């Protein structure tokens, strides 16, 4: 059998292609097959999981990244596979890659709400105090004195630990 493409060399490669739900068999010589495989027969790339896709889209677009968390040893690629970080420091270590993902998940948002009483070292205390002082004056304006007292105590405890 001759190659269906060049009609010159003997066909020794058999391709089966599914196109519009029907099966097409193509017989080609090695040379033509090589040329066609680069042009046409590119395997489709699919993600089945939304989250996976969200994280994974970076693999496709960019050269493999070699970010690694020096604290727990997790590599960024490992995170992409499982979508679980290895420790608290991973968020800093993977920051450049992870920040845009978090934006896509939660919108352009910063944490609002409860803050643990014993804040861990990575909390920016001066910034927190500033934020609380703003809240304090707001609650005084609204005459919510009970709330204001709570905020005042919180500011004091932060100032002590600073």
């Amino acid at each position, binding site marked *: 059998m001759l190659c269906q493409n060049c009609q010159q060399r003997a066909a020794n490669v058999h391709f089966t292609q599914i196109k519009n739900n029907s099966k097409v068999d193509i017989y080609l010589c090695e040379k033509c097959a090589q040329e066609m495989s680069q042009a046409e027969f590119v395997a489709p790339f699919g993600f089945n999981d939304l*989250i996976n896709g969200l994280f994974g889209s970076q693999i496709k677009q960019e050269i493999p990244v070699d970010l690694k968390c020096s*604290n*727990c*040893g*997790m590599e960024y690629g*490992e995170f992409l596979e*499982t*979508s*679980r*970080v*290895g*420790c*608290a420091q*991973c*968020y800093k270590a993977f920051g450049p890659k*992870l920040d845009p*993902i*978090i934006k896509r*998940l*939660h*919108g352009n*948002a*910063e*944490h*609002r*709400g*409860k*803050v*643990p*009483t*014993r*804040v*861990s*070292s*990575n*909390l*920016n205390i001066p*910034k*927190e105090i500033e934020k609380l002082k703003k809240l304090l004056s707001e609650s005084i304006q609204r005459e919510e004195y009970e709330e204001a007292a709570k905020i005042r105590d919180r500011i004091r405890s932060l100032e002590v630990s600073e």
Partner: protein
Amino acid sequence: MSGLQVEKGPEYDIAVTSRVRLARNFADLPFSAKMSAKHQDELVKRMKEIISSNLDYGKLMYADITSMHNIDRISLMERHLISPDLAESKGNSGAFVNETENVSIMVNEEDHIRLQALFSGVQLEKAYKVCDEIDTFISDKADYAFDDKYGYLTSCPTNLGTAMRASVMLHLPALVMTGYIKSILESCNKVGVTVRGIYGENSEAVGDMFQVSNQISLGRNEEETIASIDGICKQIIDREKALRFQLYKQDVYRFEDKIFRSLGLLLNARIISTQECFKLLSDVRLGVSMGIIKDIDIGILNEILVLSQPATLQKIAGKQLREDERDIKRAEQIRAKIQNTEVK
């Protein structure tokens, strides 16, 4: 039995339970993906020390999942006290559960700890208050992994921020019958609220039970999140109630017939599968809620919802049962439960 089956919260006939869950990790330990057996042991030890010093929730008992039989694990899951992941956990993990079975603190789950409180009816605020108190208690004793921009740091970035999931389980037969549930699912999605069917595969909800919960945890504080879920649930409940009476008025006999047939089956059947049980329970629940069926308490139906699940049934039987044996045992248990309340 579980506390939620005794207590009755606002709208308890439609809102089966309200649940708040907080995910927390300690700053000094690696997260679950990188934890060694030694880390896991240390975390369990630390939590035991912290909880044993807590007098307010002193009745919290530690259930060691590691040493537990498979049926007991799944039964805890069926009673909503532990997550499916924890039930399958191979490492050193467990949960502190209180006496009334409405508070649990899971240890070595996807996050170091996941604490949750469960109440009957629409009571997210109350559930949060309990979680908040326990959380504050724990955070006084050890440093949490926290970042001022991302809030509480969690294993999975989807839970960052408050790391809180607030959810209400709703029984919505009229919305399902009329097909309006679809538009509710869609409009909720637009405002960052997830509604999904439970007790069923994929989107199909067996027994017309749905879970409404927040999608986003970063950028909204706890009170705002709870207020939005609360508000949405109340709207859905109002819609459901209006539709129920519309359907009833349309064809009283057909409506009552459906409900009493289902009650008849629950009372008389000798073999009932889980799926059939949930369908029948849904009809009967609707009947009780609308006052068509009297003398049956919603609490009994909640109990049946839990005990008719495979592992809990086997726990009651005290032995492993094949599927066909379970279907017989289930029918037996349901009859006993309902007949105790003397239906006329």
